[in-house]
């Protein structure tokens, strides 16, 4: 398969590889895919008090397109607020990386990972408010 230069750039020099502290309230973690399917993506965001994503990290077990998609996703997430982040579409990723048709689902996986990370963050926040509520 021949890949675009953008894809190869993200594959060869992946941005934001790593992990954030899962236990941190401000961190949302998304883990999608399955080892038996050949793809697992972990994507994390850290959100500041203003509701802006100040850091994003990923680790991916999967094909080159999956790695590039998650690298690009973390790059785009940084500096966005949550509603902007929720609007990131797999098609944007696929277009930017010029993914071939059989690789579109790799970008869908990245979108799923973003959604899962935001959902995890929101769940933590709502638990925080409910658990803080009685004390208030």
């Amino acid at each position, binding site marked *: 398969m021949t890949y675009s230069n953008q894809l190869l750039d993200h594959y060869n020099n992946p941005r934001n*590889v790593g992990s954030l502290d899962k236990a941190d309230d401000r961190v949302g973690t998304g883990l999608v895919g399955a080892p038996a399917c050949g793809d697992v993506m972990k994507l994390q965001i850290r959100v500041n008090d203003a509701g802006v994503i100040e850091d994003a990290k990923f680790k991916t077990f999967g094909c080159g397109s*999956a790695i590039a998609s998650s690298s690009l996703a973390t790059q785009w997430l940084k500096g966005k607020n949550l509603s902007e982040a929720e609007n990131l579409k797999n098609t944007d990723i696929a277009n930017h990386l010029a993914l071939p048709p059989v690789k579109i689902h790799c970008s869908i996986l990245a979108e799923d990972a973003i959604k899962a990370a935001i959902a995890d963050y929101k769940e933590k926040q709502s638990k925080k408010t409910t658990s803080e509520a009685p004390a208030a």
Partner: protein
Amino acid sequence: MNNIYTLPTAAPRQRPIYMDYQATTPCDPRVVEAMIPWFTEKFGNPHSRNHEYGWEAEEATLMAREHIADLIGAEAKDIIFTSGATESNNLAIKGVASFYKGRKNHIVTCVTEHKCVLDACRHLEEDGFHVTYLPVMANGLIDLDLLAQSLTDQTAIVSIMAVNNEIGVIQPLADIGKLCRERGVFFHTDAAQAAGKIPLDVEAMNIDLLSISGHKLYGPKGIGALYVRRRNPRVRLSAIIHGGGQERGMRSGTLPTPLCVGLGEACRLAKTEMTEENKRLTSYRDLFLNLLSEALTDLHINGDKQQRIPSNLNISFAFVEGESLMMSIKDLAVSSGSACTSASLEPSYVLRALGVEEELAHTSLRIGFGRFTTEDEVRQAAASLIAAVTKLRAMSPLWEMVKEEGIDLRTIQWTGH
């Protein structure tokens, strides 16, 4: 005058190191040299009986038959030229099945056979034959007891490959042959990956039909051979290709003299050099594995550790997906069957048949060494793989979970498709 066929000279590009000798092998230059006169001045039709052009071509094909027969302990007359192992396998299985149709309707083969054997059997199933697809054990070898149990008085032929093309394991040919002979069943073996790589003897091993491919043993592409036993017992088969009745009527068509000569020379060289070559390949294989295991943990070699040819390794690099691994080792030409299940590239059916867990099957590469592999290449390949696996493990969430957080992956609720 400019030769219009000369391509503009491009800057020489460093090509990847070839480590895919099970897919095909380069033609040995000595083979090419032996072939050349038979394209040009000695172009005669080997079936022309009336003049010298024909005689010398026939003589050359006869010599080639002798070299091929020599490699497997057969006689020149037992050798049928074909276009390759795909045709040989088809001719052996379909040919025997259709000749004995009516009297026998059962075929035994194995789930890890090459696609051409499996598809020929599927085709015969549509024709009313029953086919038993034997499973393999975790080491990739068939269970002889199961084979014995599967034979009936309806069984026409057993087809079990000599060496597997993906994992390099050697099936117990002599045991299979003995069993088949005792039970009066023909034994065919697809020796595409075995001929010239391991000693083969159709008498000692009781083999009745044996397929050879030219391009797997440093010969040309587009030629192969089928050994068909002529006596004790005589094997009869129906031809697939009809015409001038060449090759004892089993395979019509004018013999491609240069290709026949090439296959013969390839077999001759393989026979003389096999012992020495295997020694060298074994030392490369051991060196390669040592280098890898000094630097990396969690490597799994697929297929039996002893019953294997030295020139093949199928390795699972746990926690690293095979296709991305291939992208990271652009300097190596190797093969991988993986990529996630959504991309239609399923993990290999051979690894699945071994019971290799799917997550490991996705991390596998097939690495093949051969006659022209050098020690430098082996070292460079190992270094390149080590760097790639190390880099990809550092970005693998699975590696992190298992190695750093001590999580058992089976306890996770995955959201796979």
